[in-house]
């Protein structure tokens, strides 16, 4: 990067908020995805603006000089959406980390993008309110990143995803102009729904500098149960039946046999290792109705052929049931050093078919693929256990992943339920959008970012 540009960026954000050393820049060449930029693709600078005004100045400069800008929060996305692309500016929004308003009367939060989602949740819950989206990374990921990626999480089945809670945004455009979308009202049909357009835009259309979020009252209580099935179809049938009967659990987590075996080996939680599926079910709501919900679910699981049902009687027992789910990751991480979590998603009723496809693909390419899913919303995390230093195996893994995407789309599903397209899946996007569908998105991008400085390569490929 030209010294003059570095100088001007430093003037905007201050000496303490720019990073230019080789070692520092190297650490923006990866995120939580398995893609990593090459050494030659290191950014020219990382800048940490403190407010929207500084962000606007940075974008204006970058736009004039046609320098790519990669917006970044905690760098926890798993689609390669925040990695450097050569002589670019890494724009980290983490300093903008204030909760500006928590409005109990209107059930609204106004926050800066760098607020850590888990922190926001704990602050909100102190007021008896609730912000439900719960991506696995919530202890570190930022709300700005969650909005930009439209993050999901286990609670999606009942509470929806980030998109369902964003009422309005302040966005800095590539030109440096600042716009506001939506607002503080639940109902708002003034103009196009620009809020939804920017939510999930993966940093390609603008930089989010303020977010207005919808909150809901915190559920009074919750309870947890676990059901074991010898066949996957039975578990899947139970899931459909539970929802058809009008019970919507807060989470409905499915673990397949590979997970079950490894969890049992690792954490000894008492799961039968020959079982094909475990459902971990959490219900929440008013205390009075919880027992009724649990009874109903128990009955459905029995009818579907559950071979074991455990219902937590105390919070400690609930914790013990969750221990199985929480051990899932450490348990499989012992198997192979590299773990890739995909997130193809299919309509609920197609889960058994998709799992069968995953098994077939794993067998075809001789790779280990375990499945852990948010069964209530059809979001399957196909977990590939591999070793990235083994090049031959790695090439088989890549082929297997390609086939996973195709299989999901064929089963009326989507390439990505909650991880985003990023740089990882851009070559597959037309499988789902079609050429015309992608072209119209390209034109929207063109209008908002004519010089293609914002996160180039993401979604549309190179």
């Amino acid at each position: 990067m030209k010294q003059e540009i570095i100088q001007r960026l430093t003037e905007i954000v201050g000496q303490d908020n720019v990073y230019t050393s080789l070692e520092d820049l190297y650490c923006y060449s990866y995120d939580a995805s398995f893609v990593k930029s090459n050494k030659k693709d290191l950014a020219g600078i990382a800048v940490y603006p403190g407010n929207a005004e500084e962000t606007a100045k940075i974008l204006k400069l970058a736009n004039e000089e046609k320098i790519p800008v990669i917006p970044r929060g905690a760098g926890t996305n798993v689609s390669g959406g925040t990695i450097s692309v050569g002589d670019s500016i890494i724009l980290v929004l983490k300093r903008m980390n204030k909760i500006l308003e928590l409005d109990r009367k209107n059930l609204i939060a106004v926050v800066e993008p760098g607020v850590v989602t888990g922190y926001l949740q704990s602050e909100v819950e102190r007021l008896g309110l609730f912000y439900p989206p719960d991506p696995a990374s919530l202890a570190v990921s930022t709300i700005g990143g969650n909005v930009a990626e439209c993050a999901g999480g286990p609670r999606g089945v009942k509470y929806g995803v980030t998109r369902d809670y964003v009422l309005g945004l302040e966005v800095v455009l590539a030109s440096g102009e600042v716009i506001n979308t939506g607002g503080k009202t639940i109902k708002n049909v003034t103009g196009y729904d620009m809020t939804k357009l920017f939510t999930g835009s993966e940093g390609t259309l603008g930089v989010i500098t303020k977010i207005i979020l919808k909150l809901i009252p915190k559920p009074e209580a919750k309870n947890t149960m676990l059901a074991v099935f010898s066949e996957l179809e039975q578990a899947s049938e139970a899931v459909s039946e539970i929802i058809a009967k009008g019970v919507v659990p807060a989470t409905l987590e499915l673990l397949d046999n590979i997970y079950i075996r490894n969890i049992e080996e690792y954490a000894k939680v008492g799961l039968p290792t020959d079982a094909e599926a475990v459902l971990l079910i959490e219900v929440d709501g008013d205390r009075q109705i919880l027992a009724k919900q649990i009874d109903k679910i128990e009955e459905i699981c029995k009818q579907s052929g559950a071979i074991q049902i455990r219902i937590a009687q105390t919070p400690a027992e609930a914790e013990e049931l969750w221990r199985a789910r929480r051990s899932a990751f450490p348990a499989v991480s012992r198997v192979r050093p590299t773990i890739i979590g995909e997130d193809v998603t299919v309509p609920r009723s197609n889960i058994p078919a998709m799992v069968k496809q995953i098994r077939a693909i794993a067998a075809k390419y001789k790779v280990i693929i375990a499945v852990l899913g948010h069964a209530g919303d059809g979001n399957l995390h196909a977990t590939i256990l591999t070793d990235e230093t083994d090049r031959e195996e790695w090439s088989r893994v890549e082929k297997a992943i390609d086939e996973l995407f195709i299989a999901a789309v064929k089963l009326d599903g989507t390439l990505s339920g909650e991880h985003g397209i990023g740089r990882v899946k851009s070559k597959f996007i037309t499988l789902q959008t079609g050429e015309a569908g992608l072209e119209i998105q390209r034109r929207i991008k063109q209008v908002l970012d004519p010089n293609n400085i914002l996160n180039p390569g993401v979604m549309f490929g190179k």
Partner: protein
Amino acid sequence: MKQTLASWEKEVIRCIRCGACQSVCPVFKELQAEASVARGRVMLIRAVINKDSDLTDGFREKMSLCLMCKACVANCPSGVKVDKVVEAARAEIVRKQGLPFLKRLIFRFVLKNRWVFNFAMRMGSAFQGLVFRKGPHGQGMLPRMPLGLDRRRLLAPLAPQSFRSQYPEVVKVEDAKKRVAFFTGCMINYIYTDTGRAVVNVLKRNGIEVVIPALQNCCGAPVRINGDYESARDMARANINVFLREQVDTVVVACGTCGLTLKEEYAELLADDPVYAEKAKKLGAKVQDITEVLVSLDGFRDKIQDEFQDKLLDGTQGKGLPFNTELSRPKSPASIGGGRQRAVKSSMDSTNIQRGLNPPLNEVSFKVTYHDPCHLVRGLKVKEQPRQIIRSIPGVEFVEMAKPDTCCGSGGSFSLYHYNISAKINDHKIEDIKQTGAEVLVTGCSACRMHIADGLSRQHAGVKVMHTVQLLEMAYEVDR
């Protein structure tokens, strides 16, 4: 211990870059730059292994910015041993580039040679008044002149007489029911001799004979953590020889770092040594923190558990208690009638001592909070024992601070090289301590004690800092 950095490749690729370490790394909390968190360090190390990068000054700087607090290791979903990998990177730097002069002098000449160390410390003790002035509230001392140390740094003065020189090699008790060896560590020997004295007194009180081998030297942790494996191995072998010679089943430590070094790191360092690999394991199996030794004595009871039990039997608080805990064990005769605390004063005569660590003898009326030293809680996995001891002292009101197991920012020599960051991390700890309203901060490591005392002095908080055994010693000695 793996020889080269490259041999750690299998470990570093286990980092899936999820970034979970960002929520617990104290250094990252202050700096916020990606290169200052575990994920960044691991990726930089990987770059060096892949030859994408070299052992540059920048790399060295990033590697030095780790407190070795193990918070990331405990929080890592894949369980990547970040501390070991960073240590291996530091060792690679030392191997390829050597040690800077000052470190070379200290590690290879002073720490390794007990007589030099002793001499230096004796001289230091005599002349420290020339370069240091007294700190506020009469605690500690501040540099009078630039020493390469930050002039705001409150250091504890060197003791006029080292701990080991004040005691015979064997501290005898009549009818000893147990015999242990005491590994003092440097800070207890040269600075906090009061902690050492408390260890000996408390053990004596409990009928335990204490051997303090004169030939022991520094455990080697500061040397190893800075990457000088060669010296660390020499020091390990020397200590192994000294302690395996003693006829004891237990080697007591009163410092988490020394403890972890003796218990686990020696075996790792010497894994390839044909003679010492086994010996290191043998020594490791004997190592226990002083609080572990005390709570495992016959007759030690956790006050909280007893109170729960009393209430259970009284029927006053039966409902809502968790089940299946140790609460269901039979009630011990001493606590029947709830008169345990009243019985306390009458048990002062020495005959009772043989019953083990009875409820400590006298009341100490302090509000106390406890800081978990990193290497004690995440290294030796000692968390409950000190709390059990503190709670069992009559009169003590124990208050837990927020996040008691977050690093105090010391990191041993980290606080000397990166004082500003170290002090900022410490500020959070001091704030958490202040929030409790405690008059005494108890901890289990001398380095934490010094750093927290420094922080308290900077913030003019009148909180006393001491080791767990010192509080216990007070309970034994007050009114005497």
